[in-house]
């Protein structure tokens, strides 16, 4: 491969979608995000994409690179092993412009599962320390690493229907239910037990394959599913 690659970008101007190609000089360690900035600065200033931290923490720059959702800031161009790079916006999201997708619904779903610790004994006047053992922390720690990049949601076949909560939101619900400090499990079970919740997952497990933080959302969804099933059985029999 030479020191130049071809970026083929799927663009959207608000009315029509089209592909545009750009030649980008590459150096060792250069990321796809840097390639996009190169295009924006040297060829076309109207190219729209989202990015912020440039170090795989904020999750803003998730896009489809050669057919797979990845973070543009952590994907090195040479690691793709191809001189042609196809860049597209994430699937299952409405495209606003070029590579920018509308995350409003995604974040609403996240908010819907109450992703925060719920306690009955909150006392902000006299706060007390809540202790947690390392084992209790490890029960949910992996799932706290989610950066809400939307990669999992974009490949989920069930999320092709807009009302499905999606793997990220269900993982967030599981993360807080598994937290020993939390007391809101019953509330969250009710939220994820509906027909737009855990029962819609078909276990394609694509979410875990593309997660840039290797969180394994498919595992969280299945764990949530078992717990939700037990919760439903208990509520039917009044146990």
């Amino acid at each position, binding site marked *: 491969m030479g020191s130049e690659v071809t970026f083929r970008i799927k663009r959207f101007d608000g009315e029509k979608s089209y592909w545009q190609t750009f030649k980008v000089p590459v150096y060792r360690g250069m990321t796809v995000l840097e390639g996009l900035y190169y295009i924006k600065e040297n060829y076309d200033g109207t190219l729209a994409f989202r990015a912020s931290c440039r170090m795989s923490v904020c999750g803003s720059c998730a896009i489809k690179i050669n057919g797979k959702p990845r973070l543009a800031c952590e994907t090195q161009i040479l690691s793709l092993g191809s001189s042609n790079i196809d860049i597209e916006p994430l699937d299952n999201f409405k495209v606003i412009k070029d590579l920018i997708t509308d995350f409003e619904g995604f974040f609403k779903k996240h908010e819907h599962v109450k992703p925060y610790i719920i306690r009955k004994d909150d006392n902000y006047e006299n706060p007390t320390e809540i202790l947690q053992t390392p084992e209790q922390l490890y029960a949910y720690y992996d799932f706290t690493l989610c950066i809400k990049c939307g990669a999992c949601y974009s490949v989920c076949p069930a999320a092709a229907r807009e009302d499905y909560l999606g793997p990220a939101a269900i993982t967030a619900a599981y993360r807080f239910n598994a937290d020993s400090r939390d007391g809101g499990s019953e509330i969250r079970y009710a939220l994820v037990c509906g027909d737009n919740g855990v029962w819609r997952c078909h276990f394609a497990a*694509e979410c875990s394959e593309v997660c840039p933080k290797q969180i394994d959302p498919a595992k969280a969804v299945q764990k949530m599913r078992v717990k939700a099933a037990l919760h439903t059985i208990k509520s039917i029999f009044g146990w």
Partner: protein
Amino acid sequence: MSWTNWFRISGKSLFGIAFSLHRLTGVVLAIYLCMHLTYLTSLKFGKEFYESLIKTTVSPTFLVFDILLILAGVYHGVNGLRLILHEFGLAYESRRTLLYAAFVLTLVLWFVASYQMYRFVMGV
């Protein structure tokens, strides 16, 4: 959502392909079920009519379709068992191994069943 999304292969991993094949084989089996029930219903029109239909489809000409139908059925069944296992919250950490095992098991069962079908139809 466009109806073509229903058949879209999401992602590029084997899991996405396994999911799409599961869906596709499900459609094939649903169509077969309709044909099967139609055949059974044809008994209302007499034994001769039913046997004429069977004679047409259980024949060397249709053997290739039978073998493909067996592949669809076996794959759907084996992959379905894998999914049920995971959905009971079991062995998701070993899901890659189980996926490979499901593919191998499907091929083995398909060959055995196809051979039996071949012997039955060809009368050997």
